[in-house]
């Protein structure tokens, strides 16, 4: 016996089905967490493609569904629960803070203010952190002039500080994940997986990563650097992270297989570790899927090429 209760729902949502009453019914299931990942992602897409008025209506429907008193216990929480909960959460916060604290600080202590953990990473955060790192790195370098031993130690310490810097920003934001990728701590697959969650502020259907750009013209200061680009070809969001790139003005450009050159973005590297986020034209973003990425310095010399 195959059960059939005579409804007309399709097995899989279609763009046509993802409108009106069907979308409203699915909004309730989505809010209750009853859709699986595939359907939730499709609902999310249908939601984002909906007119603003329908989106607003769906948000209200979902909020009403999750707070529907018919499905809630009538029991009230105990007064002690607040203290217990806050204690447990703050303990978890502190544990994470100590887990990602720097191994050591050498040289002058920059004014850091109150330390924050698990914060979102935006470009400003990244640049601020990069500046801190640059100061620490300089101090380490000054400290390690004449001895190979100390030179090796400084490299290890700088790497550790870099990793600590990145992991101190322990969050699954796009910037952090790209940073992890740039440092070789995450694969692109892990980044894509980290981006996949219903209701996320960021969703990347497809992104293209180019990394490991190597110095081309023998510029010694550039040979150890990397430039990592992450681009969302659907909305033109471009993340650039430069590690070990000398100070100066640069242009990131694209060279097609037919040698057609398209400038992508200009930036000025100020510190040893540097990052920024741009929005570029969709056509340009899609170009980055193929061809070669080049980093050109202020004199017009290609210092890195993918």
């Amino acid at each position, binding site marked *: 016996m*195959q*059960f059939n209760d005579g409804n007309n729902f399709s097995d899989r949502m279609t763009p046509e089905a993802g409108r009106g009453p069907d979308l409203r019914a699915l909004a309730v299931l989505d809010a*209750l967490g009853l859709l699986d990942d595939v359907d939730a992602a499709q609902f999310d897409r249908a939601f984002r493609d909906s007119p603003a008025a329908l989106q607003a209506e769906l*948000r209200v429907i979902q*909020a009403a569904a999750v707070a529907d008193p018919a499905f809630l216990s009538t029991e009230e929480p105990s007064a002690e629960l607040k203290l217990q*909960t806050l204690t447990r959460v703050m303990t978890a*916060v502190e544990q994470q803070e100590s887990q990602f604290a720097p191994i050591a600080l050498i040289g002058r202590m920059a004014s850091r203010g109150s330390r924050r953990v698990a914060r979102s990473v935006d470009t400003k955060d990244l640049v601020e952190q990069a500046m801190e790192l640059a100061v620490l790195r300089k101090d380490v370098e000054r400290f390690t002039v004449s001895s190979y031993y100390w030179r090796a130690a400084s490299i290890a310490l700088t790497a550790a500080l870099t990793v600590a810097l990145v992991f101190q920003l322990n969050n699954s934001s796009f910037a952090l994940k790209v940073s992890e990728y740039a440092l070789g701590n995450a694969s692109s697959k892990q980044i894509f997986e980290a981006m996949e969650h219903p*209701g996320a502020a960021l969703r990347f259907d497809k992104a293209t990563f180019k990394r490991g750009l190597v110095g081309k013209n023998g510029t010694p200061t550039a040979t150890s650097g990397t430039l990592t680009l992450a681009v969302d070809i659907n909305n033109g969001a471009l993340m650039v992270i430069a590690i070990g790139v000398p100070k100066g003005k640069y242009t990131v450009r694209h060279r097609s297989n037919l040698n057609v050159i398209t400038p992508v973005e200009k930036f000025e590297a100020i510190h040893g570790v540097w990052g920024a986020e741009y929005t570029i034209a969709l056509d340009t973003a899609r170009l980055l899927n193929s061809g070669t990425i080049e980093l050109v310095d202020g004199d017009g010399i290609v210092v890195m090429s993918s």
Partner: protein
Amino acid sequence: MEPAEHDDWLLMQKVGEGDEAAMAELYDRFVGLVYKTSRQMMPSRAEAEDAVQETFIRLWQTADRFDPNRAKLVTWVMLISRRHLIDRLRRKSARPEQLGLDSSVDFLGPVVMPPRDVGGNHDLEILQRRVAELPELQRVVIERTYIQGFTLREVSEQLNAPLGTVKSALSRGLARLRDRLMSDNKNHGQDSSA
């Protein structure tokens, strides 16, 4: 974005930074809903309270993902809460084997609900009773998804029924269940005031 939504976004940013005052504000605003949902699904008060604490840890961990353009804060909080509860239920519950609807009539019998407190969970009892009164397919789908935490696709496979049928049964079952529970609450209110 409306000012209230922007405020919610700022609140969650602070929660994500581990700001204790922001966490306390989040707790004050939503603990009622989070606890009542937990209590509805968890067999004991102790387990419900533990689930509430873990839910707020999850809210701290996922705070940066909150998007006010996608959902209101209450929806986000309750989604995180329900997912956590479902994870707990899935860890605890023994999973039924995959069977077709035609393989056994007994398969559609009542599911084994979590053991209850010695003192009983009146809300859970009412919920169970009302679920048991639903038409067969609606009852099984609600028990499996809403109470036991199976996904719609898993239930569809277990019942060998089209996914659309399962979705439809769930939507209609929840609507019917809601009407009956609201009616119970209304009657209960009248009894109390009499």
